[in-house]
C-alpha cells in the first residue's frame, strides 16, 4: 500500500515537471494510428505521411514544383536513366552518414517482393552507383514521371537495416516482423522517443537536422495518440488534453470555429470525388437477372451528369468548404486544366436525354457508396440519389464501410458508384490509365467502366515518355477531350480538410494530402 502511495506521488510529480518543461510540447490526437513505421510494409496514406516526420524523401512536391530534399538535383541523363545528386553532410538519427548506398538501397527495397510500395518504383529495373553521393535509377522504358512518386519514399540507412534484419519490408505472407516496423532511423526533423503501437507515440526534435534553418516550428516534443471516435476526439480537444486533432469531424467544424478556445485549420485535399459508371457491360451488375445496363448509353451518362447539382452538394453536404470539381484530377496535378468547363446543371436537359435514350420514365439502378472512406461520402451519395430521383432515376443506394465497398468495386459488380481518387504521382496520365485504361477482362482494377480505347492508351503512353512540357500539355488536352466525350465520370468536388486546435497553437500547415507535418506547427509558450 505504501509503495503504491509512493509511486502515485512520483507520478504526480512527473506530471508537474512534464507540464512545466513542455512549453513547446505538442499533443496531437489522430483518428487512426499508423499501421507501422515502415511505409513499404504498410502502404496507406496515413502511414506514408506519418513516417515522413522521421524520414526524408529524396524530393518533395509543393503543388507547383519538385523541390530538393535529400537529393540536391536530378536529371534524366538518358531516356531510361535518372541521375540523382545527393546532399552531403546529412546524418541519420543514430549518427551514420547518409550516402548513395542508402538511397540506392531504399529505392530497391520498395521493389522487393514483400514490398507494398511497388507502385512508387514501377518500371525501375536497377540502380547504379556513380560516387558516394551520386547514383542512377534505371527504368525499363523512358519514365519522365518517375520522380513524381519519390516524394513519398523514405530514405533508410542500409547498414542500420542490415543490423536490424530489415533489409526487405516485413512479409506478412511469411509472417515476418522486423525492427523497421516499430523503430526508425531516418534523417528527418523528428526522432522517435517511444512507440507503443495503437496507444501512444512520442518524438523529440532532431537537434542536428540538416534543414533546421528552414523549420520555423518551435515544437521540440510531440505526443501522438489515436482517438478513433469523432466525438471523443473533439472532447479531448475541448478538455485541453490535446492541442490538435487530425482531422476534425465536419459536423463539429462550425462549433469549433465559433468556440472561444478553439481554432479550425482548413485546407483542400488533392483528391477528386466523382461518380463513375460501368459503361460497357450489357446488364446491371453484370447479372442478366437484374436487367439491361442503362449506363452503357452515353446519353444516360450525360443525363446523370446534368441532373446533378454539384454546387449544391458542395454547399450543403460539404458546407461550402470544398470546391466544385471540373475534372476528376485535383488542382496541383500535372495535367489539371482549370479552364476545362463542367457540363451545366440542367435537369430539363437530363430528362430530355433520358427520353432520347429510351427511358422517358426513368429506370432503377443500384449505386455503390462508401461510408467511412472520405469526408461526407455517404451524405454525398444520398444527395445524388435524391437529385437523380427528380430526373426519374430510382437509386438503390448501397452505403458500406470502405473494405466492403472496395471489394464490391473491384469484384466487378458495380454499375454506378461514387468514388474518389487521390493524386497518383501528381500526374493526370496515371489517373487516366488507372481509371480508364484498357485492362484485360477480369482484371479491370479500378477501371470499372470497362472502357478501352487504344487511342487513349497510346496518348497516355506518349505523355508518360514525353519530356517536352508544351507537347505533353497538348497530348494531355487531347486525352481529356476523348474522355470528356465519353462522360465516364461525373466530377463532383475536391473535398476539404479540417484540423482543429486550441488557441495555444499559432500555426498549422495543412498539406493537400490531409497529413500533418509536426514541423509545420507552432505553439505559443
Amino acid at each position: 500500500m505504501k509503495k503504491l502511495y509512493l509511486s502515485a506521488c512520483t507520478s504526480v510529480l512527473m506530471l508537474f515537471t512534464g507540464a512545466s518543461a513542455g512549453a513547446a510540447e505538442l499533443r496531437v490526437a489522430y483518428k487512426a494510428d499508423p499501421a507501422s513505421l515502415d511505409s513499404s510494409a504498410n502502404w496507406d496514406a496515413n502511414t506514408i505521411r506519418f513516417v515522413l516526420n522521421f524520414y526524408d524523401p529524396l524530393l518533395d512536391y509543393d503543388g507547383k514544383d519538385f523541390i530538393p530534399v535529400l537529393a540536391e538535383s536530378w536529371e534524366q541523363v538518358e531516356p531510361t536513366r535518372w541521375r540523382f545528386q545527393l546532399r552531403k553532410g546529412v546524418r541519420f538519427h543514430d549518427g551514420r552518414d547518409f550516402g548513395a548506398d542508402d538511397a540506392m538501397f531504399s529505392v530497391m527495397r520498395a521493389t522487393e517482393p514483400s514490398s507494398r510500395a511497388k507502385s512508387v518504383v514501377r518500371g525501375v529495373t536497377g540502380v547504379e552507383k556513380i560516387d558516394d553521393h551520386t547514383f542512377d535509377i534505371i527504368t525499363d522504358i523512358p519514365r519522365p514521371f518517375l520522380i513524381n512518386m519519390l516524394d513519398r519514399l523514405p530514405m533508410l540507412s542500409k547498414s542500420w537495416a542490415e543490423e536490424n534484419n530489415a533489409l526487405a519490408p516485413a512479409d506478412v505472407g511469411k509472417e515476418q516482423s522486423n525492427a523497421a516496423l516499430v523503430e526508425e532511423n531516418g534523417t528527418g526533423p523528428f526522432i522517435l522517443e517511444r512507440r507503443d503501437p495503437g496507444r501512444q507515440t512520442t518524438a523529440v526534435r532532431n537537434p542536428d537536422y540538416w534543414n533546421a534553418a528552414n523549420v520555423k516550428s518551435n515544437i521540440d516534443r510531440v505526443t501522438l495518440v489515436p482517438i478513433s471516435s469523432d466525438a471523443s476526439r473533439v472532447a479531448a480537444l475541448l478538455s485541453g488534453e490535446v492541442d490538435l486533432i487530425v482531422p476534425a469531424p465536419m459536423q463539429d467544424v462550425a462549433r469549433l470555429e465559433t468556440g472561444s478556445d478553439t481554432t479550425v485549420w482548413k485546407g483542400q485535399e488533392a483528391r477528386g470525388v466523382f461518380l463513375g459508371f460501368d459503361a460497357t457491360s450489357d446488364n446491371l451488375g453484370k447479372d442478366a437477372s437484374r436487367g439491361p445496363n442503362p449506363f452503357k448509353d452515353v446519353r444516360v451518362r450525360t443525363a446523370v451528369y446534368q441532373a446533378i447539382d454539384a454546387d449544391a452538394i458542395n454547399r450543403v453536404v460539404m458546407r461550402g468548404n470544398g470546391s466544385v470539381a471540373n475534372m476528376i484530377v485535383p488542382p496541383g496535378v500535372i495535367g489539371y486544366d482549370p479552364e476545362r468547363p463542367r457540363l451545366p446543371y440542367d435537369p430539363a436537359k437530363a430528362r430530355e436525354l433520358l427520353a432520347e435514350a429510351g427511358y422517358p420514365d426513368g429506370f432503377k439502378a443500384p449505386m455503390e457508396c462508401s461510408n467511412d472512406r472520405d469526408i461526407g461520402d455517404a451524405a454525398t451519395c444520398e444527395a445524388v440519389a435524391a437529385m437523380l430521383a427528380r430526373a426519374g432515376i430510382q437509386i438503390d443506394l448501397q452505403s458500406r464501410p470502405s473494405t466492403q465497398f472496395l471489394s464490391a468495386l473491384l469484384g466487378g459488380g458495380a454499375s454506378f458508384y461514387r468514388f474518389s481518387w487521390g493524386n497518383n504521382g501528381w500526374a493526370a496520365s496515371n489517373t487516366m490509365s488507372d481509371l480508364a485504361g484498357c485492362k484485360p477482362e477480369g482484371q479491370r482494377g479500378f477501371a470499372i467502366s470497362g472502357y478501352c480505347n487504344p487511342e487513349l492508351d497510346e496518348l497516355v503512353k506518349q505523355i508518360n515518355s514525353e519530356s517536352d512540357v508544351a507537347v505533353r500539355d497538348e497530348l494531355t488536352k487531347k486525352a481529356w477531350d476523348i474522355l470528356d466525350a465519353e462522360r465516364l465520370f461525373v466530377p463532383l468536388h475536391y473535398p476539404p480538410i479540417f484540423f482543429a486546435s486550441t488557441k495555444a497553437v499559432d500555426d498549422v500547415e495543412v498539406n493537400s494530402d490531409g497529413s500533418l507535418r509536426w514541423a509545420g506547427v507552432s505553439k505559443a509558450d
Partner: protein
Amino acid sequence: MLGMLLRRIVESLIVLFAVAFIAFSLFSFIGDPVNNMLGQEATEAERLDMRERLGLNDSVIVQFTRFIGRAVQGEFGVSYRQSRPVIDLIAESLPATLELSFFAMVLAVGLGIPIGIQTAINRDSLVSKVLMTGSLIGISLPTFLAGILLIMIFSVKLGWLPSFGRGQVEQMGWWGTGLRTWSGIKALILPTITLAIFQMTLIVRLVRSEMLEVLQADFIKFARARGLRERLVQFGYALPNTLVPVITIVGLQLGSVIAFAIVTETVFQWPGMGLLFIQSVTFADVPVMAAYLLLIALIFVVINLLVDMLYYVIDPRLRSMAGL
C-alpha cells in the same frame, strides 16, 4: 462430479470449434483485406500476388483447417494491418480489457446488490422509488451516450478526469497495468462507470425481484411466525437464497462485459481488445479477428464452466442429485 467435468470440457471444445468455423465462414463477407493493404495504385497483378502470398485464394475449408492446425499449437499468425504477431497484440490489449471489466463488475455488484436489497425490503419508500426510476434510465441509456455525457461533464466541463486512454501504464512482466500510477487510476474511473451502469441496473432489478419472491416463500413466513427478528429473517434467511441465481447471472455477465466492452473502449479510446477488434474489422484483419473471437469464446466457455461448478458447491440439492 468428475464425469460431469469431463463431459463439459468436451462440450466446450465443440463450442470453440463451432465458433471458429462460423467466424471463418463469415470472414469472406467483410471484404478483401488486400485492397486495404496495397493502396489504390496497386495493379491487379500485385493484388493477385498478395492474395496468393496470404493464402486467401484457398477455399474456406482449407483456410479454416490451416487456422485450427496452427491455433492448436498456439500460433495465430501475423496481423495484416500491423505486421506484428497477433499474440503480441492480444497480450498488449488483454490486460486493459480485464482490468476495466473487473472493476466494472466490482462496481456493479458492489452497488447493485445493496440497492436491490434496499428496494426490495423498503418497496414503498421514496428512496426506493427514486432508485428504481434511476435504474430504468440506466438500463435504457445507450452506453455510447452515457460515456459521452460523462466525458462532457467530468473531462470537458470540470476537467477532473481524462477523456481518453489508459494513463501511464507500468509493465509487470507481460501484464501492463494502469493501477500503479495515479494517472492510470484516474483514467479508469469514467470507463468503469460507463461499463458498469447497465450491469448494475440489471443486478438491482434481478436482486429486487428475487428477494421479493423469496420474501413471499413459506420458510420466510414460518421464520416470521417463530418471531425471529426481521433483520435476521431478511439477511440471515432471505438474502442467501436470493444470491444463488444472482451469482449465475453475474458470472455470465462478466463474460459479456469482457466481450462487449467494445463500445466503452471505443468511446474512451481504451486500448483493450474491443478496440483492437473494431480496428481489425474495419481493415478486414482476419488473423486478429479469428484469434479474438476464439479467445472470447474461450473466456465464455471457461466462465460458464466455473459457474456451473459453483452451482454444485452452493446448492446442496444438486450435489445430492449428482450423487444419486
